[in-house]
């Protein structure tokens, strides 16, 4: 069997990335509890695993670097080296270096920073304890021991083999070794030495008392023969000598079956001498050419780790579907109306199973949000040091699951919010003390489910948003007029989501570079979510991101306009009404509106928006579906509602192009294509004066 270890590379990469992720958190914890030995052991194990794996799979740079780090950690867990700020920093930087080296191994990066400076610092620390920085060299890449083609002449060997008494208890069977000798060539004679057997009363059946003298002819070299005894060479007597090639043994007592009967003979009675120790050391095997394990290009398929129980449930459901299918086959094979109830039952059963299956398959893509939260402890640690603030990070609901894609995309906006909190919201320890707050500021990340959504909150106990400054900025930017009455708080605070709206007095390293909250808002909206905030001066600010659980399936309401069927995301629907004649009015500057319990809602005629024809153009005969996004409501004029269903979102852009007001398409049960309406887009249209997309296109 011959294969390349490359096929396990992606498993190793993923594992190493996880370990490095863990390592970061562990190192940060170590700063707080430097005396936690268990923690140090775990940290050591992380480094050890990465070293072992990278050496096995042939990533020499990573293995070599980690080896030094491992040595350092070993000194620490043995209590020879105490953790200090310097060492803690060194460990964190080393962890980053490992990640860089891993990225190179993965082929994600072409080069990594030079390891030499860090290695030098690691060695410096090791030297401070050991007096020398000589660390045992790491075993190089694995080598394949080539079977050297043996064409050499055969030799006759005499082997004296007295295994140590304990070998049976280590699961070693001397027969196995004698068999290997036998297979090496031609067995000339074998003599069993029973002289060490004790009396039957004293015998321990689990000890080995026998010895053998074996004369055999083989092409094997000495080292190869001695290698058979590698695991017992220290405690056994193994003497190998070469006899003249024409050696003819003087056979005293041939025990050819000795090998097969050792166990039985163990119960013979004789005296036991302690076995003399004179093991011949085998020479190490000749290293062959290094294995061609390329660390460079490897097709890095995106992998997803799924808990086994999730997969088991899927398999169960598939089993159910197959049973359903055979049920259906059976019913249909010679169908008569008498079988109709059974057909209905079978179809209902099938529907249940496929819906279950769908849910479970979606669950496969779900990951706990700790994958997104995981990067923040380090971020907070580094930034709090950089700005001289004391900050504690709390995470709640880390096991809340959401779609992998959502996790990947939401990480950046979250990072932005956390950076903002550290840079702007939280005060310096002095300021906090003066304000009667604890010096240690807190940032809390909280994730939880709410209805069909997931909510992620980023809150801090800092100074809160500065109302005056936001108002001033909004006036400066012409968002509101100075003469107007100042808007309500919630509207005012929402201005921070406007492009280019940064209230930071000066640009700092962390934020305030004009790339502001508008980016965050856009990213969240791209995920079909929304963001809101809540702030109390002097007490803190809380940002609340609301996201759909998954992006691939949508709970929607299908509705018809003329011949067309559209899908509205259920989460955006407030209610649907058939207005009375007096409630619909034309208002100058605002167009058509409907009055609903005192609220004025603009009407958007979908057939006008998409340039199609409708069955009803009179609102009192048609239906108005009220939709909401971001607190803004619009009434959509449609013909009728068809029903609620889950639809699979198909991207329009990948197949056609982006169309305003349309979020995507889906295929209906009858095979027709229906367009999924983009509610935020539609509401935006209304603000543009209800211009028709059809005309624009």
């Amino acid at each position, binding site marked *: 069997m011959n294969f390349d*270890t490359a096929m*396990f590379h992606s498993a190793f990469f993923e594992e190493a990335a996880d370990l490095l992720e863990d390592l970061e958190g562990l190192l940060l914890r170590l700063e707080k509890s430097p005396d936690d030995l268990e923690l140090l052991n775990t940290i050591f194990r992380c480094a050890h695993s990465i070293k072992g794996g990278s050496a096995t799979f*042939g990533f020499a740079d990573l293995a070599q670097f980690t080896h030094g780090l491992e040595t350092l950690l070993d000194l620490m867990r043995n209590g020879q080296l105490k953790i200090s700020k310097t060492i803690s920093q060194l460990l964190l930087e080393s962890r980053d270096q490992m990640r860089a080296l891993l990225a190179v191994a993965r082929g994600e990066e072409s080069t990594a920073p030079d390891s030499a400076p860090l290695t030098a610092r690691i060695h410096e620390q090791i030297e401070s304890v050991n007096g020398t920085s000589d660390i045992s060299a790491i075993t190089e890449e*694995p080598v*394949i*021991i080539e079977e050297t083609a043996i064409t050499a002449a055969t030799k006759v060997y005499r082997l004296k083999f007295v295994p140590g008494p304990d070998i049976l208890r280590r*699961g070693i069977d001397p027969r*196995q070794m004698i068999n290997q000798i036998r297979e090496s060539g031609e067995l000339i004679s074998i003599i069993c030495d029973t002289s060490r057997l004790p009396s039957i009363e004293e015998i321990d059946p689990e000890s080995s008392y026998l010895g053998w003298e074996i004369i055999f002819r083989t092409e094997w070299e000495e080292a190869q023969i001695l290698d058979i005894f590698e695991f017992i060479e220290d*405690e056994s007597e193994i003497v190998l000598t070469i006899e003249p090639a024409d050696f003819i043994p003087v056979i005293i007592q041939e025990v050819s079956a000795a090998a097969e009967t050792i166990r039985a003979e163990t119960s013979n009675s004789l005296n036991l001498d302690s076995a003399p120790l004179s093991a011949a050391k085998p020479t190490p095997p000749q290293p062959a050419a290094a294995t061609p394990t390329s660390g460079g290009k490897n097709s890095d398929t995106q992998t997803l780790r799924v808990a086994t129980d999730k997969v088991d449930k899927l398999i169960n459901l598939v089993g159910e579907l197959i049973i359903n299918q055979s049920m259906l086959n059976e019913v249909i094979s010679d169908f008569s109306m008498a079988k109709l109830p059974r057909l209905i039952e079978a179809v209902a059963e099938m529907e249940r199973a496929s819906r279950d299956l769908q849910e479970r398959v979606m669950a496969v893509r779900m990951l706990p949000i700790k994958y997104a939260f995981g990067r923040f402890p380090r971020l907070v640690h580094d930034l709090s040091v950089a700005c001289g603030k004391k900050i504690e990070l709390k995470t709640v609901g880390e096991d809340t699951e959401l779609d992998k894609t959502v996790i990947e995309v939401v990480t950046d906006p979250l990072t932005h919010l956390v950076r903002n909190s550290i840079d702007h919201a939280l005060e310096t320890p002095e300021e906090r003390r003066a304000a009667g707050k604890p010096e240690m500021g807190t940032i809390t990340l909280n994730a939880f489910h709410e209805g069909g959504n997931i909510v992620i909150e980023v809150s801090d106990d800092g100074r809160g948003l500065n109302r005056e400054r936001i108002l001033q900025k909004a006036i400066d930017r012409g968002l509101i007029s100075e003469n107007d009455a100042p808007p309500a708080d919630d509207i005012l605070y929402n201005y921070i989501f406007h492009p280019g709206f940064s209230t930071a007095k000066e640009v700092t390293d962390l934020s305030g570079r004009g790339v502001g909250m508008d980016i965050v808002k856009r990213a969240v909206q791209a995920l079909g979510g929304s963001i809101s905030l809540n702030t109390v001066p002097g007490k803190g600010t809380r940002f609340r991101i609301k996201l759909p659980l998954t992006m691939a399936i949508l709970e929607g309401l299908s509705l018809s306009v003329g011949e067309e069927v559209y899908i509205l995301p259920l989460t955006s629907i407030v209610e649907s009404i058939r207005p009375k004649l007096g409630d619909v009015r034309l208002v100058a500057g605002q167009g058509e509106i409907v009055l609903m319990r005192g609220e004025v809602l603009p009407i958007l005629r979908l057939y006008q928006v998409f340039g199609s024809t409708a069955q009803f153009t009179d609102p009192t005969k048609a239906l108005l579906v009220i939709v909401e996004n971001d607190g803004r409501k619009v009434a959509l004029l449609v013909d009728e509602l068809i029903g609620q269903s889950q639809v699979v979102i198909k991207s329009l852009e990948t197949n056609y192009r982006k169309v305003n007001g349309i979020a995507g398409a889906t295929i209906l049960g009858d095979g027709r294509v229906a367009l999924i309406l983009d509610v935020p887009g539609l509401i935006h249209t209304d603000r543009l004066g209800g211009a028709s997309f059809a005309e624009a296109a």
Partner: protein
Amino acid sequence: MSKTALIVDDSSSMRQMVGFTLKGAGFQVIEGVDGQDALTKLKEVPGGKVDIIITDLNMPIMDGLTFIKQARSLPACKFTPILMLTTESGDNRKAEGKAAGATGWIVKPFHPEQMLKVIEKVLPS
């Protein structure tokens, strides 16, 4: 009947590689993620007996040496070949392993073929 091997390693990539190699050589493979887990898995095997055990040393919860000792104390595993995987080629580790009851060792990094050779060496055919 195919032979059964128990692999104990906390690293899933190592388990994958060792497992793949052994399956290729005709073994049935059982995996344990640490010593404790391996003991549990061992008890679930009919007769509590496998043909060979290959274990890492550095593992959380229960390390390899403790696992070897515990496994050796089980009647079914008294004479089972147990190989340990170690990155340290030093004699100390080997002596500790022997004292715990390990049959032999495979020094990491190793090539799958080297591992099969060592198994051949200790596994009665």
